[in-house]
């Protein structure tokens, strides 16, 4: 498989902060690649390196085979970029924004209409509305259309779903899957762990370092500790009790249940009995497979 992006041992300081420390990863052509990590993990710095807006202090970055330092102009004409905020002209209409960005890349809306059709069609009824008056979900769609209007070979999306409600987020990922079929390489960052499962491969990033690179499925499979899901009547009290137990390694809340890991193989029945004796009611305890968030927390904790 051809490599679309190669990040080789990259370090970058931003002010006093070491934003990235010896980062390595590569993205295959046509892959949907996720950079998963919280705010301040170094995701945005990584995107700015990929888009040639920053130069690495150490290491090299190549996009489509071009070096981001030497051949930055070649890269700039072939990537589509959506920065962290929806970078649109709020005082221009939907159509004017799109037209403008098309002309920036010396193309027209008509020329690449096929590629953006599905996305733009959803906002076309509002094409005379100013971008500033659109809802979060619509802004996101317009920004994506603008980033795609020149048919880029690599699409770089920095936190496109932050602050957007779950429904719009879900739709957005559907759109990305469609774009993947056009053989566009997509790198997307997100702080929402549950979105990781939508990617082909993910890199978990924290404090400027890559914790792990894998497919979403393998990350969960690599989770070596036994994991129990515990439900009960009063989760908060239950959590406090479980944390006091000697064999318990970690206990985190997950929605309506708790995920508990142990330092030695747990005895599910004994564990349940122990909790019942402490006065916890309505207990159900099930061994489960780890999810990406479980993995992330375990890796970040180590």
């Amino acid at each position, binding site marked *: 498989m051809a490599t679309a992006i190669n990040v080789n041992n990259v370090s970058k300081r931003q002010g006093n902060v070491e934003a990235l420390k010896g980062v390595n990863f590569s993205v295959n052509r046509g892959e949907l690649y996720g950079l998963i*990590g*919280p*705010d*301040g*993990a170094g995701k945005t710095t990584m995107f700015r390196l990929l888009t040639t807006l920053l130069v690495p202090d150490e290491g090299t970055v190549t996009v489509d085979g071009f070096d981001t330092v030497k051949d930055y102009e070649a890269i700039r004409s072939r990537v589509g970029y959506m920065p962290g905020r929806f970078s649109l002209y709020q005082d221009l209409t939907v159509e004017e924004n799109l037209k403008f960005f098309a002309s920036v890349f010396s193309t027209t809306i008509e020329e690449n209409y096929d590629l953006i059709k599905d996305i733009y069609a959803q906002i076309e009824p509002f094409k005379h509305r100013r971008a500033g008056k*659109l*809802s*979060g*979900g*619509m802004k996101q769609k317009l920004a994506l259309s603008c980033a795609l209007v020149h048919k880029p070979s690599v699409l770089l999306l920095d936190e496109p779903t*932050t*602050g*957007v*409600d*779950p*429904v*719009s987020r*879900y739709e957005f990922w559907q759109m990305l899957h469609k774009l993947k079929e056009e053989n566009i390489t997509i790198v997307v960052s997100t*702080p*929402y*762990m*549950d979105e990781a499962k939508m990617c082909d491969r993910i890199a978990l990033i*924290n404090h400027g370092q890559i914790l792990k690179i894998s497919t979403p499925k393998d990350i969960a499979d690599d989770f070596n500790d036994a994991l129990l899901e515990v439900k009960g009547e009063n*989760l*908060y009290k239950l*959590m406090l009790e479980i944390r006091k137990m000697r064999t318990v390694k970690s206990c*985190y*809340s*997950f*929605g*309506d249940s708790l995920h508990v890991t142990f330092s030695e193989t747990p005895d599910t029945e004994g564990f349940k009995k122990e909790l019942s004796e402490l006065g916890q009611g309505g207990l159900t305890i099930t061994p489960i497979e780890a999810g990406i*968030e479980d993995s*992330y*927390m375990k890796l*970040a*904790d180590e």
Partner: protein
Amino acid sequence: MNDEMGNKVIIAENLTKKFGNFTAVDHITFEVERGEIFGFLGANGAGKTTAMRMFCGLSRPTEGKGSVGGFDVRTQAEQIKKNIGYMSQKFSLYEDLKVWENIRLFAGIYGVKEGEIKSRSEELLHRLGLYEERDSFVKSLPLGWKQKLAFSVAIFHHPKIVFLDEPTGGVDPIARRQFWELIYEAADQGITIFVTTHYMDEAEYCNRVSIMVDGRIDALDTPRNLKEQFGTTDMDGVFRALARKAKRGD
């Protein structure tokens, strides 16, 4: 405050807010009890922020009644402000002030007694594990710590209710859970929590959840009952089923 409503800290009765022809909040009715963690969900533009502003006494309702902590949102905005705490993702602390200066400032604003501030802020800093960082500027703290600190500052004056507007956006998974543990603790002490979030797993942490669609409250129940009602395994499914009906954006 009379006994009858002693346990109802937030009451909304047909609460409505119109901007011109646009009905941002459309006759919402619900009650929140003391010590409850109440999740206030909705898609972007569903009217959450407008409703929250009315409860905080920042915006006068066009129609309907509302009371917060026993005070009328229409006529007693000043009393309401003294009895609530507020924190949002966007603004919570002054980035260019030090940790202890922020605590002092907000404690002072909410009228905590001078003598109490020092001892209690030291106790707070120890509890959050931030004592070594007390002289750091807030902007130098990781986001997760910042938000935990902001929440602790928002409840420093022991308000009856604390309003949290997307408090955990972008916060890493561990810090997010630690944040919710602080929420549980506060609820345990009888502080009512009114929270909005885009993380559906966090909706599960709430005692009850309301979901706003186009200015109305379309569902209100415990997460468990909602999931049963909509036949889904998680809150994400409930939310999607409801929000799909939405007709308007923001």
